[in-house]
């Protein structure tokens, strides 16, 4: 032992500790690596905002579109133009006179929702009853034509029109995009970084130091924490500026759900990265896990649309649970525990993936 101490003559021992706690050093390293990776910053912060913008514009709620109607031309029937005129007077209808072939083609391609063929004293409607807009068109067209012939309402109707923020498509979309983004950044952020470190033998190098292995894995969670809220805030702030999106629930609830969702997907990312040796291997695995959730978990449209038999499976997916929670708090202002089942589902995923990942994690 004496010579072990005496040989420090060569290099002087430092007087005091110049480094932080290893967990903090590891976390700082994560944060640095992330911020210096321009592509990663783009995908985590810029891309979701662009996506919100594009989808928000594409599906923005304007005044209801007019119903497009074709009136089939008939050389023997002079009333055709008159009928088209009657229809066009309705504010809900845009009508045009087309030849038989043109009308058929317009109906097929969805350019018009219904074709009206006038006979002497009757009308023939041609439409596809499986298309919702065609069914609506039929009702509107029929109403206008019947009224023109003198039909009157028998009951008086009062209407109250409701189009308030919170019920629009963009309001449905934003929580879904946040959920999807939390899934993506959790899985890619951990999965890729860890597998790269493994393939470059960096994990093995760390394993040769006294570093606590739990510190290494925890540092990923902590560095995620640093970006989690920024990630969510970027989308929320943009959506509120561009589309008047509002969060109805408390910010505390939103934060807690963000935290739970972020950690759950970090745990799943850890699990995905526990074994693969190559980037190709982990990419395949991640797509295999994420693709079904992109489709099934109600990011872009409600997952209720899938057949009943799939519902238990879909509801058990972590992204479905997270999206449900985010929508409940953002759109409806629901308190945290009103959706305790979803919280339990996420906690299960978090715990199971973490424990299994730690068990099977490969350091070399």
């Amino acid at each position: 032992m004496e010579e072990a101490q005496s040989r420090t003559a060569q290099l002087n021992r430092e007087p005091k500790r110049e480094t932080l706690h290893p967990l903090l050093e590891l976390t700082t390293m994560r944060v640095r690596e992330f911020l210096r990776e321009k592509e990663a910053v783009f995908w985590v912060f810029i891309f979701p905002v662009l996506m919100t913008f594009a989808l928000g514009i594409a599906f923005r709620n304007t005044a209801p579109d007019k119903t497009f109607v074709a009136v089939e031309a008939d050389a023997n029937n002079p009333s055709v133009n008159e009928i088209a005129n009657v229809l066009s007077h309705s504010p809900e209808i845009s009508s045009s006179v087309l030849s038989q072939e043109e009308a058929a083609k317009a109906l097929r391609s969805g350019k018009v929702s219904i074709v009206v063929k006038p006979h002497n004293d009757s009308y023939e409607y041609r439409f596809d009853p499986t298309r919702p807009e065609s069914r609506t068109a039929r009702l509107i067209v029929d109403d206008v034509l019947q009224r023109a012939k003198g039909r009157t309402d028998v009951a008086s109707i009062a209407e109250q029109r409701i189009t308030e923020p919170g019920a629009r498509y963009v309001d449905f979309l934003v929580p879904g995009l946040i959920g999807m983004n939390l899934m993506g950044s959790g899985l890619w952020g951990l999965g890729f970084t860890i597998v790269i470190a493994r393939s470059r033998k960096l994990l093995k190098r760390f394993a040769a130091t006294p570093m606590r292995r739990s510190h290494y894995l925890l540092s990923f969670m902590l560095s995620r924490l640093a970006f989690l809220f920024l990630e969510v805030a970027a989308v929320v702030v943009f959506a509120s500026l561009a589309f008047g999106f509002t969060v109805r629930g408390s910010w505390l609830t939103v934060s807690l759900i963000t935290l739970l969702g972020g950690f759950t997907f970090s745990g799943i990312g850890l699990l995905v990265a526990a074994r693969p040796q190559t980037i190709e291997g982990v990419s395949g695995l991640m797509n295999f896990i994420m693709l079904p959730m992109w489709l099934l978990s109600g990011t872009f449209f409600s997952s209720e649309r899938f057949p009943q038999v799939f519902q238990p499976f879909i509801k058990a997916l972590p992204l479905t649970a997270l999206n449900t929670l985010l929508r409940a708090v953002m759109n409806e202002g629901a308190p945290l525990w009103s959706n305790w089942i979803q919280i339990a589902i996420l906690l299960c995923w978090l715990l199971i993936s973490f424990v299994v990942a730690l068990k099977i994690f490969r350091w070399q």
Partner: protein
Amino acid sequence: MIPCCSLEIDFRGGLLATSRVHVPTINSHRGGGHGGPPLQFRSMSIETSPIIQPISTAAQRVALRCSGLVKRFTDVTAVNGLDLEVFAGECFGLLGPNGAGKTTTVEILEGLTPADEGTVEVLGQHWSSAKDSTDGSHRRASDDRSLRERIGVQLQETQLAEKVTVVETLRLFRSFYKRGHAVDQVIQTVALEEKRNSRVGKLSGGQKQRLAVACALVSDPEILFLDEPTTGLDPQARLSLWDVVETFREGGGTVLLTTHYMEEAARLCDRVAIMDHGKIIALGTPLELIESLGADQIIEFRVTKELDEDALTSLPGVTNLHKRGEDYSLTVAEIGVALPALLAESKRQQSELVSLTTHQATLEDVFVSLTGRMLREG
């Protein structure tokens, strides 16, 4: 403790040689009543070897010891019954071609890979992952951590994160250890002061490798493991890395180094073990090994017409002949006698010389004479 080791070396001919290999003690133990086979290596005094530094008696503690080491992978036995002792304060080299089992051996000693059979002792401790615990005590991961505090490791293939700087990388590694050097001190040791704030991705191969060694040195380790530290480096970069190793040695540190460069082993190592197919096939100081050839010069040549091999071996001064393809290699004791005889012989057999070179025998020639292959052939 007996301040020397005895090792059984299985030579190609099946000859078992028991060699007193630790140089300073060879003379005192030579002829000390071994009943075994004759010594394969002529022992030599310290004075004739400029490479070997006298090692004090106190430093003859064993820093690393393994015996009967076996490691099998699914398709190959990487280490096949390996015994090794490395003394505190010495630089020990594992020399061998790619695939000889050097890296596997080192990783077992570093506690990264558990051995299938055999025992490993590092600074008097065992790794907890070792299947065969000699003292029967169950070591835990925390005991491993205390041992890891005392060793420094450079792995052959580690690529450090590219987006972080030299000083950030070292600070991270420093934070893992309870005690060690100041980061800037280590940067100075490996001569990376100018690159202190450069990103790892911007460093040259040699600079990256020096940084890797710096990461191993930052804990002020007692043993430094270097796995092919200079492979792929240009001569200048290699020299500056050797300087780093020598600085560490001057401070009294123990080094275990693997390499397939014989000149690196000859320059840095007190003792060298030549490995092939997971076994040690020769062990000794670099000079002892070269002397074991019984010759000091090698003649390599090519001729237009094949020569009779028996005639070549019986030439005066020639001790050995190797032929690989068209290349002949003669091991000769007296070059002044052997060279004219060779020229005369080739003329007599009506063959013309295409090329001829001679050089001092090296560790490479030792390897060739033991295995019939070149070191870098793999």
